[in-house]
């Protein structure tokens, strides 16, 4: 049975299969290779996907769902959802736990459910072409997708009845399709500009090895932004001429969107495009007004120049992360519809100063790569080894609203890292662990992947308990976090599958719903499966966690083995910052933690039973004061800030003074100057020379650096000061100092 590759795009999707050394992109019954990722819900309960669905957008925008992928794996309050709400004609509503739902014809649908319609379409196109059932697929995702988005994509696959063999990053898939079986040795960039997102990856290809050196992206940048520029131009001109704001008219806006996109596409072929919308609006007397205008490549290029420049900022970053310059590259692979624009092709070849790989179809190459990998995973094709990276830094929430890095972005995957923590309070019963992805040290500026409570460890004085938190990123880029107590085999380990999206039960319910509706037309009214199960507790799929006693508030973790930790002095008094701390949940006391004597690696207890008994772990987002709920202090891995010795502390402060002195141009210390400095020639090794070069570069940037340093130092205080703060219970949570450490020793047991 063939396994297929699906490019599930924001704007368009594509399906391919690899067999007997050939890769075929599979067309639908109309001979179309590309399927718009649009789903239309008709009044009779039936649905359509693709071109016919897209045709409904103008007449029934509220029942036609386009670009659902923008919402996939997002929280309702996120910027991306706000932006989508502003431009979408369909109804985006809030579901349980800050999830996003779409309301269409009295149904409420989860986003993976919408994506599943598209996946199901791709599946049936493949089945029709291959003349056999298809159940296995590799699905591609933007390289820059975070864990929540990846999980949601997997959920969509499940709902569509597919076994998702792998999630593959789109640029990696493109590189695979380009290099497969050609025995190349090349370093290439993949420039992937789609409908709503931009990704760039730099890869090293060595015959059957495809190693991603770095990947960067912008999830707010794509061909639709180009359309928006044209829409703005048209709407502004129309407003000044007719005093009518077309943007407030849903139907006019849809027409503008379609016309702007068409004009943009025309400009990839011709030097000049004509936009004509008859009957775009009516004047006060009820006369039809039409919009007609020409646009040249030159004018268009001025409209979007800054957007193109933004893609190069991302390319700069990617090169820098890979420690390369454009001179190190052998070529660029262009992916995505907008890269058909000569404007973009020219800009890209100028930026990279190298060849654009011509033998690559920008709309199909991603699906082809996915198909090749799918075939090799099921043994139909020879293997290639795809070595990818994680696009975002993985972080753990610590005291003071900060998030400490555990795994840096662009670290290769699969990978696992363990950090050790200890309790902060005497006889503390549980700790709360929050996991983030992003590049900010401030928790809120990162994406929350999930939070969970861990308990069941021994009751002991603070610092006597050790808790190992293991972070794993698998080959799909999906994150798993496990907390366990290595000291006591009797205590359960809690395995958490982080997910902002649907629970297993919800997915199952949706799958069943669709199995029913596959036979009959969809029921137009009544509560949907998603609604019916909305009451189910979510977030924590961990059996053990669900059965835990009430978590202690203000449970700050501190390092178990950190030599510098002087618990009794440091925390002689229980912190007084407890007031106002929210009780996380109300688990009945009699629900004792189920334990497993030896098998600490496996989940414990029965989730259904535990959940049924009323355990509830709501995702608590945004509400309340974060700093008071934090329960982890940062690991000491950030050694220069957590140096146990005084030297580190002093250095941090000294650094600040130095920089200040520099900024204010303080007098040089002539009085202390001494001339008897030995000047004998030095043997510098290569790394010294590098440092020196970097230093020379640094010089003009000094003020900049100073501000970064300030930022880094702001939370670091001399130990003494900290101790006082601790003793008075004041500001204890504001200090992410040496309260916690990643155990440098046998991090893994």
């Amino acid at each position: 049975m063939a396994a297929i590759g699906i490019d599930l795009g924001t704007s368009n999707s594509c399906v391919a299969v690899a067999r007997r050394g050939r890769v075929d992109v599979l067309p639908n019954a109309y001979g179309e290779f590309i399927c718009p990722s649009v789903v239309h819900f008709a009044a009779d309960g039936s649905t359509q996907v693709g071109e016919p669905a897209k045709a409904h957008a103008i007449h029934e925008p509220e029942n036609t769902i386009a670009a659902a992928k923008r919402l996939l794996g997002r929280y309702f309050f996120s910027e991306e959802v706000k932006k989508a709400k502003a431009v979408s004609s369909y109804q985006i509503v809030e579901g349980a736990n800050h999830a996003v739902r779409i309301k269409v014809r009295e149904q409420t649908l989860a986003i993976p459910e919408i994506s599943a319609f598209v996946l199901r379409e791709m599946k049936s196109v493949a089945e029709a072409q291959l003349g056999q059932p298809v159940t296995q697929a590799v699905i591609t995702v933007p390289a820059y997708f975070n864990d929540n988005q990846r999980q949601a994509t997997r959920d969509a696959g499940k709902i569509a009845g597919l076994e998702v063999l792998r999630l593959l990053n789109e640029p990696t898939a493109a590189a695979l399709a380009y290099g497969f079986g050609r025995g190349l040795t090349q370093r290439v960039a993949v420039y992937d500009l789609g409908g709503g997102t931009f990704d760039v990856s730099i890869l090293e290809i060595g015959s059957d090895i495809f190693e991603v050196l770095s990947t960067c992206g912008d999830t707010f940048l794509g061909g639709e932004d180009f359309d928006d520029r044209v829409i703005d131009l048209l709407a502004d001109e129309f407003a000044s001429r007719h005093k009518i704001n077309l943007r407030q008219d849903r139907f006019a806006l849809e027409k503008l969107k379609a016309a702007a996109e068409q004009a943009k596409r025309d400009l990839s072929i011709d030097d000049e495009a004509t936009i004509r919308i008859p009957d775009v609006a009516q004047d006060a007397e009820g006369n039809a007004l039409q919009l007609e205008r020409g646009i040249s490549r030159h004018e268009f290029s001025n409209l979007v120049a800054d957007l193109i420049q933004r893609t190069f900022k991302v390319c700069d970053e990617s090169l820098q992360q890979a420690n390369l310059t454009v001179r190190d590259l052998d070529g660029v692979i262009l992916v995505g519809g907008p890269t058909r624009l000569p404007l973009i092709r020219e800009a890209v070849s100028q930026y990279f100063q190298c060849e654009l790989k011509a033998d690559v179809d920008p709309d199909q190459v991603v699906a082809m790569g996915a198909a090749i990998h799918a075939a090799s995973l099921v043994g139909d094709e020879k293997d290639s080894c795809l070595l990818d990276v994680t696009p975002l830094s993985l972080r753990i929430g610590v005291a003071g609203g900060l998030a400490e890095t555990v795994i840096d972005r662009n670290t290769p995957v699969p990978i696992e890292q363990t950090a050790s923590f200890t309790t902060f309070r005497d006889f503390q019963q549980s700790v709360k662990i929050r996991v983030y992805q992003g590049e900010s040290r401030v928790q809120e500026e990162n994406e929350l992947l999930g939070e969970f409570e861990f308990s069941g460890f021994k009751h002991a004085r603070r610092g006597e308990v050790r808790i190992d938190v293991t972070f794993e990123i698998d080959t799909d880029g999906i994150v798993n976090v496990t907390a366990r107590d290595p000291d006591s085999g009797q205590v359960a380990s809690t395995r958490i599958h982080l997910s902002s999206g649907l629970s297993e039960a919800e997915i199952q319910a949706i799958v069943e719903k669709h199995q029913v509706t596959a036979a009959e037309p969809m029921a137009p009214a009544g509560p949907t499966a998603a609604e019916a199960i909305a009451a189910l507790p979510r977030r924590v799929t961990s059996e053990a966690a669900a059965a835990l006693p009430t978590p202690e508030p203000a449970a700050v973790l501190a390092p178990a083995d950190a030599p510098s930790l002087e618990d009794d002095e440091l925390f002689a008094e229980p912190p007084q910052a407890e007031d106002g701390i929210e009780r996380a949940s109300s688990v009945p006391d009699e629900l004792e933690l189920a334990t497993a004597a030896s098998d600490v690696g496996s989940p414990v207890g029965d989730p259904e039973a535990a959940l049924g008994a009323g355990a509830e772990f709501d995702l608590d987002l945004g509400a309340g004061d974060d700093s008071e709920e934090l329960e982890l202090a940062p690991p000491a891995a950030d050694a220069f800030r957590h140096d146990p010795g005084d030297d580190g502390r002093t250095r941090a402060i000294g650094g600040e003074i130095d920089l200040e002195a520099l900024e204010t141009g303080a007098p040089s210390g002539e009085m202390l100057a001494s001339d008897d400095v030995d000047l004998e020639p030095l043997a510098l090794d290569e790394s010294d020379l590098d440092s020196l070069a970097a230093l020379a570069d640094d010089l003009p940037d000094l003020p900049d650096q100073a501000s970064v340093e300030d930022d880094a130092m702001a939370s670091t205080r001399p130990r003494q000061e900290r101790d006082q703060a601790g003793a008075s219970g004041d500001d204890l949570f504001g200090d992410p100092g040496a309260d916690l450490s990643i155990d440098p020793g046998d991090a893994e047991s």
Partner: protein
Amino acid sequence: MSQTSIAEIRTLAGLLEELDYYQVLELVPDAPTSAIRAAYHRTSRRFHPDAHRDAPPELQQQVAQVAKRITEAYAVLRDPRRRQVYDRQLAGDRDRVRMPLAEAEAQADRQRRDQHEGRTPNGRRYFALAKADLNRGDRASAERNLKTALTFEPDNAVFRALLQELVARPSGAAARE
């Protein structure tokens, strides 16, 4: 790839906690930087989870353990700064075969800062003053401050090199502008 024998995977998975990063990548400890990527590719070909999809679950788990350790070894050794930090740890204690990435990174950063900005408060202070002098074009003062910085940190190669450059190439400042 799938020729990697079951016995080999089992053995490696069982030994994992005793192998240092060089052994995991099948490298000699003084392997040149260029050999590290090749070793990563070679070992990944054999132990990447994708190549063992058909294996029984227990074996898949072992392959995953090995693959994750290979990646970790690569993430530390491919970066000369992290590698240096790791080598020192290994020299100090043969049993500490792993090093958290965040720790390797932080120590490497600290090492760089020590060289680039100074390790002692006074070293840092005078070095920063010297840099400010240079930015203003006051080479005489820069030289004095550098020398002072060196009295506090005679072994700082960065301070020393800058001072040498100042003394050796009196017109250097003009060129730098």
